[in-house]
């Protein structure tokens, strides 16, 4: 598929960050470093303009690889282009220390403030000082320039969730065409949903660029012999045809395998992200990878959005389309690739998705091992 096949005007009005990156939203992130400060973070976000919180269950009593994954996800989330500045909120005694997270964000040249409940003397002062910091960051965000941008500036995230006839026949092929168009235009795509990759190792290898094979094998090895966190998807993928399972990837070779929470190093082409297809965990990994927008391929119709990125819900499931008419953005049975591309660009230009209009979102980080 080449750019000339698209009939869609490919530009939109975005934001341009001081470092040149294009954004499609202009938000302030209130990031709790641990579960113990997540309600305080949510309250700060509630009281501050442009602010979103990312409550999660992590940050303490985790072992080794889980700690590293959590910290990496925090950094990726704060570095998402849609975020104009970050307030890191800690409790004070947790494993993932808020000041260290803030220092790592600062090192990347991103605006950041930090405070902890124990440091400022309780939840009340923390909410007060935290919202003052968020409000100050929002003032800087107010002056961020609106700027024309085009599809090649975008990183599009795709969550390949449920696997059934409706996704195989309708939603996945449509999304594959979008992925091909984005990549052909010079943009990039990141795809999450590792149950499908784990179920069809040979097919994944065949779709990889030669230089990526080792990383692919390492990813496959991580999941060998383990049950899927999204169990139904794992089961469906095991019994489905390999090409059908990987249908949403499009025709481009896989250039990169990103670990969970890792930022995408490339600015064009296709990468897969080692995240389960559980929507909130997948969307978090895609946002951390740098996705501006996430397309969620769903049969169940999970209605939650994500705090960092606008989410386009696409479904071809007749019952879901009937049951959740105001929760699904794209009817994969009726929409053309042009329709989907237009919708993507409209959302990039500021149009609210279904989940944004409902104001409900979920943020979650996946796990490797158990809580201690």
């Amino acid at each position, binding site marked *: 598929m080449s750019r000339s096949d698209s009939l869609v005007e490919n530009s939109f009005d975005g934001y341009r960050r001081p470092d040149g990156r294009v954004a499609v939203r202009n938000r302030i992130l209130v990031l709790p470093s641990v579960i113990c400060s997540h309600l305080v973070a949510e309250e700060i976000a509630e009281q501050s303009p442009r602010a979103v919180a990312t409550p999660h269950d992590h940050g303490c009593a985790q072992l080794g690889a889980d700690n590293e994954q959590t910290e990496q996800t925090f950094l990726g989330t704060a570095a998402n282009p849609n975020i104009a500045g970050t307030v890191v909120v800690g409790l004070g005694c947790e494993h993932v220390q808020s000041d260290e997270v803030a220092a790592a964000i600062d090192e990347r040249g991103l605006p950041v403030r930090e405070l902890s409940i124990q440091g400022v003397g309780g939840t*009340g002062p923390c909410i007060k000082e935290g919202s003052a910091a968020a409000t100050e960051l929002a003032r800087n965000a107010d002056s961020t320039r609106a700027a024309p941008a085009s599809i090649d500036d975008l990183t599009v995230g795709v969550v390949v969730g449920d696997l059934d006839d409706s996704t195989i026949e309708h939603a996945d092929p449509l999304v594959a065409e979008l992925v091909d168009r984005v990549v052909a235009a010079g943009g990039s795509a990141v795809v999450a949903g590792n149950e499908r990759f784990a179920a069809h190792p040979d097919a994944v290898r065949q779709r990889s660029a030669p230089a990526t094979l080792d990383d692919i094998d390492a990813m496959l090895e991580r999941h060998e012999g383990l049950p*899927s966190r999204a169990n139904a998807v794992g089961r469906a993928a095991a019994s489905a045809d390999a090409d059908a399972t990987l249908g949403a990837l499009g025709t481009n070779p896989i250039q990169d395998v990103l670990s969970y929470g890792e930022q995408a190093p490339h600015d064009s082409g296709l990468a897969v992200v080692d995240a389960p297809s559980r929507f909130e965990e997948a969307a978090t990994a895609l946002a951390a990878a740098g996705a501006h927008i996430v397309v969620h391929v769903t049969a169940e119709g999970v209605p939650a959005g994500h705090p960092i990125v606008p989410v386009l819900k696409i479904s071809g499931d007749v019952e879901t389309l009937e*049951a959740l008419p105001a929760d699904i953005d794209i009817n994969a049975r009726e929409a053309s690739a042009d329709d989907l591309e237009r919708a993507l660009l409209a959302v990039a230009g500021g149009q609210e998705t279904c989940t944004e209009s409902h104001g409900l979102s979920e943020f979650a980080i996946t796990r490797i091992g*158990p*809580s*201690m």
Partner: protein
Amino acid sequence: MVSTFNGYRRADGRVGIRNHVAVIPTSVAASSIARGASEIGAWAKPTPHQMGTSQPAEAREQTERVLVGIGQNPNVGAALIVELGTEESDAGELADRIAETGKAVETLSIRDAGGTRPAVERAREVLEDLNEEASLARREDADASELIFAAECGGSDATSGIASNPAVGNASDRLIEDGGTASFSETPEFIGAEHILAERCVDDELRERLLERVAQREEMADMMGVDLRGAQPTPGNQEGGLTTIEEKSLGAIAKGGTTPVEGMVEYAERLPTGGGLVLMDTPGYDVESVVGKVAGGAQVVAFTTGRGSTTGNPIAPVIKVAGNPKTWEKMSNNMDVNASTIIDGDSVEEVGGRLYDTLLSVADGQHTEAEKRGLEEFAVNEVQPKQIAGSGVGR
């Protein structure tokens, strides 16, 4: 003299100290809608969590045990189970298990309701009705023997083992003397102190089980190929003077007082009423651990802290007990009981008595600092694929 309080006697005979309407999502797909619907009033208590619509069987069973236990907790007057409608856990079945206690339970499917907006509206209508029904309950005389009291520690430092944990242990002893149940958990924080607990077990079978569970938690470090010190003690623990997990554990078990260990239950399994000191096998991760014990039926929690943890729980009031004088001074708005006076010379018995009085007042309806501030953290401990595929560690 037997201690008493006023509580809500439920149809199953258990006594609640609060009269909440719980709003329980069956999966993460329904969590944000449960939260949104609960904005209707402070009496509606959502328990949003991050468990998926389709977990492996071992994980799903644990999630269901938690959700049912939360609904059955006597502090819950009525419950609404919210589902997307595609989950492997069935809302109707969970509701039936909760309804066995005789309380009003309703279910709501987001798909059947027609999506997010109509589901939130419909949930609010159902919640109004449930609250009306729950509001008919009146407080009546109850005996301290009907209380299940959970002890927890978080944000520990060296004062925890010297001041706040011994004070909570003394309150546990008092409640057990009055015929009640006290429970503490956090199995990783038995490591290095398990021989002392084992000696207190009432029989050999229990002793072996306890030691086996402690060994399983220790094996998790092997499974992840790391030193346990990567998680325990935490940086805050270490800054507060705790050098090793053994030192932390020896201080932590002081929460359990001095009575014999009568039993040990699984994460979120029902704790007996009038059962004396009963352990629960939970992680040390405090929010998940508190949720496990509340799902087990604990009506009230005492949470000791040195550094200053501020977390609460949506269903059971959490009494924060400060052991560090600086924390008491700096964070008094988040703390309920000052146990740091032990360091200045107060006896453990004196402060334990004060804490026991607070516990009965909170049972009577007095709000804790976390309740006043709406601090209601909730998280379910998830059994991970690595545990399932491995040796059964932590199950």
